[in-house]
């Protein structure tokens, strides 16, 4: 039993916080910001504890393995969770003061799912964790159903349903694919595909189809082309503080899963999935970047930009090298902080300006220079401009991909990065050069401001000094891919 506690200490803690928050709210309902702050602080405690608890080990039968890979992801998810909570505190206290606890509890459940996901080495556990991660997200998406600026349609419920339908459909796709793969290989362990046939013969057609189905299922989850349709709609409809979380943590978890499955389990069968992965990565970069161009709603724009970013991350996974995987982690980690920051600033501006369209956030930098500057930094990081974290992320990914011989995709990616710069700059243009109809400073709540500052710190800090994260990522990736 003690071994279990040691192995799952952090996950236990997260679930316990969820229970605590629910109970506290049930017996002592509060309408202030206390619930959120307590959640954030306790999560911070868990994050701090993750540096002291040595939980490495494996559950019986190898269904769950805790190594550097898992530790890296747990910390990343916890950080995203803390920031997600911080970013929501002011909004929740204002909009639904009587119903805050469930929001945090659901977010924590999702967080627990993600944290477990990183260590799952068994299909059953993986699928179940994936659902534990996804299910609360459907609900949270529709949380602020009557919410949002007056000028915009209230789309939260639709966004939730849309996310649910795509999520459930992708679960179905994954499950069916798994039925074929697990059935053909006869084991639920995530490992090499045993062909069963004579030596040298590849997997049976049915196994191949199953693998592709599984890949497609995960493609839905991370929002890669051609499974991306839900992304812009959901981002536009769901409450913005939640979209910030939705746009980073589940995607990071999805990419982690893809890495576990493709590089950890199916690495020997890369001839099956690699072409598909490359096509998906290339298509995501192209579609994401070009469809973002005509957008006028900042959330939709960021949705498409997120699709493009996923394309870059998949490109790094496609290198199949330890270095490439490490750079995926670096990319994802910087993306987490950058995208959270972008959405938080956008949320602050939209609350005050009455909408998320580029016209509504016009003049932001004149009204609040710091907020405008933060937004600019985040946008530049997304665009991959030097001395912010996103630059190193893109650069490392491209370098690893170039090393792995994916020259065409690298050239495509570099060219598309310029397209990306264009639409990121259109956002910057509307905040810096256009004149809005208001001139009072944008006020952010303390929690939201703190979240933005933390994001800013990491984006700039990692931009100036990327070495620690590079090393951590390299260390973590060694748990999945050995060798170079």
């Amino acid at each position, binding site marked *: 039993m003690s071994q279990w506690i040691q192995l799952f200490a952090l996950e236990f803690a997260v679930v316990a916080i969820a229970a605590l928050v629910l109970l506290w709210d*049930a017996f002592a309902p509060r309408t202030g910001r206390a619930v959120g702050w307590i959640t954030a602080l306790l999560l911070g405690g868990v994050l701090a504890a993750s540096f002291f608890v040595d939980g490495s080990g494996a559950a019986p039968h190898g269904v769950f393995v805790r190594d550097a890979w898992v530790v890296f992801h747990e910390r990343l998810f916890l950080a995203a969770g803390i920031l997600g909570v911080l970013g929501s505190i002011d909004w929740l206290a204002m909009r639904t003061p009587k119903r805050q606890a469930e929001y945090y509890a659901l977010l924590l459940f999702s967080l627990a799912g993600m944290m477990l996901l990183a260590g799952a080495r068994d299909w059953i556990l993986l699928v179940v964790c994936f659902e534990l991660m996804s299910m609360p997200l459907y*609900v949270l998406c529709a949380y602020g159903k009557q919410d949002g600026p007056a000028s915009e349609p209230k789309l939260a419920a639709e966004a939730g349903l849309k996310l649910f339908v795509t999520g459930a459909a992708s679960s179905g796709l994954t499950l069916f694919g798994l039925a074929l793969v697990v059935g053909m290989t006869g084991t639920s362990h995530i490992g090499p595909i045993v062909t069963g046939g004579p030596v040298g013969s590849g997997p049976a057609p049915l196994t191949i189809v199953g693998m592709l189905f599984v890949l497609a299922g995960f493609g839905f989850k991370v929002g890669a082309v051609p499974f991306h349709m839900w992304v812009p709609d959901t981002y536009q409809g769901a409450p913005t503080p939640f979209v910030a979380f939705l746009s980073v943590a589940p995607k990071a978890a999805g990419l982690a899963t893809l890495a576990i499955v493709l590089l950890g389990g199916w690495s020997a069968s890369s001839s099956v999935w690699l072409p598909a992965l490359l096509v998906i990565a290339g298509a995501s970069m192209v579609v994401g970047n070009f469809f973002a161009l005509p957008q006028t709603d900042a959330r939709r724009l960021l949705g498409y930009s997120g699709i493009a970013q996923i394309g870059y991350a998949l490109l790094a996974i496609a290198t199949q090298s330890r270095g490439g995987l490490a750079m995926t982690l670096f990319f994802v980690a910087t993306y987490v902080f950058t995208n959270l920051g972008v959405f938080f600033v956008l949320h602050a501006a939209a609350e005050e300006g009455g909408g998320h369209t580029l016209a509504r956030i016009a003049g932001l930098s004149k009204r609040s220079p710091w907020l405008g500057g933060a937004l600019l930094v985040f946008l530049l990081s997304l665009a991959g401009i030097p001395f912010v974290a996103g630059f190193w992320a893109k650069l490392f990914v491209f370098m690893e991909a170039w090393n792995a011989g994916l020259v065409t995709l690298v050239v495509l990616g570099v060219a598309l990065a310029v397209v990306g710069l264009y639409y990121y700059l259109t956002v910057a243009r509307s905040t810096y050069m256009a004149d809005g109809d208001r001139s009072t400073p944008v006020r952010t709540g303390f929690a939201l401001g703190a979240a933005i500052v933390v994001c800013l710190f990491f984006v700039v800090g990692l931009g100036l000094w990327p070495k620690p994260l590079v090393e951590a990522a390299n260390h973590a990736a060694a748990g999945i891919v050995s060798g170079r």
Partner: protein
Amino acid sequence: MTLLFVLALVVTAIAAVMVVAAKNLVRAVMALALMLLGTAVLYALLEAPFLAGVQVLTYVGGVVTLMIFGVMVTRRHEGANAPAERIHGFRGLVVAAGMFALLAWAVVASDLERGATPIVKPETTRSLATALLDDHLVAFEVVSLLLLAALIGAVVLARRRDGRDEGSAILAAASREAIDAQQAPAGSAHGGDAR
């Protein structure tokens, strides 16, 4: 035996088509029930009696009931300004047919019958339970969390702003099903807290 199998197979297939073809949603749900029953029969024939039982209990007994409930509650309105029933009909057909062609080709091309050895020791309910609570205990616990999360989520969604619990009927049903399906004491314990 074979006859029963063929019968179940045909009934399941036809019922499935009816589920997506029926204009009337109540009929579609009924067809779903039929299909689920057909599948349950197939489970039984495939030596999975426990699953057949669970299928009948949770699916036919629970999910279908829930669906009917959903149809009834949301039904008032179809008719007058009901939108066109289908979209992208042709595109959907092409995708589905293409997918089926791919799958059917893969199934046939994989030559599954050659070298397949009959199972010596069929999986019994007992071995299933052992696997559930031994090898996959972690997953089992996670599922209880999942059901708890779903429960809280359903409460959150169904509860009205003004506090009236219109959706509590759905919830009650949902939670019962959830708990039945897992027979997880953890689930009900947590469920109690959530209320």
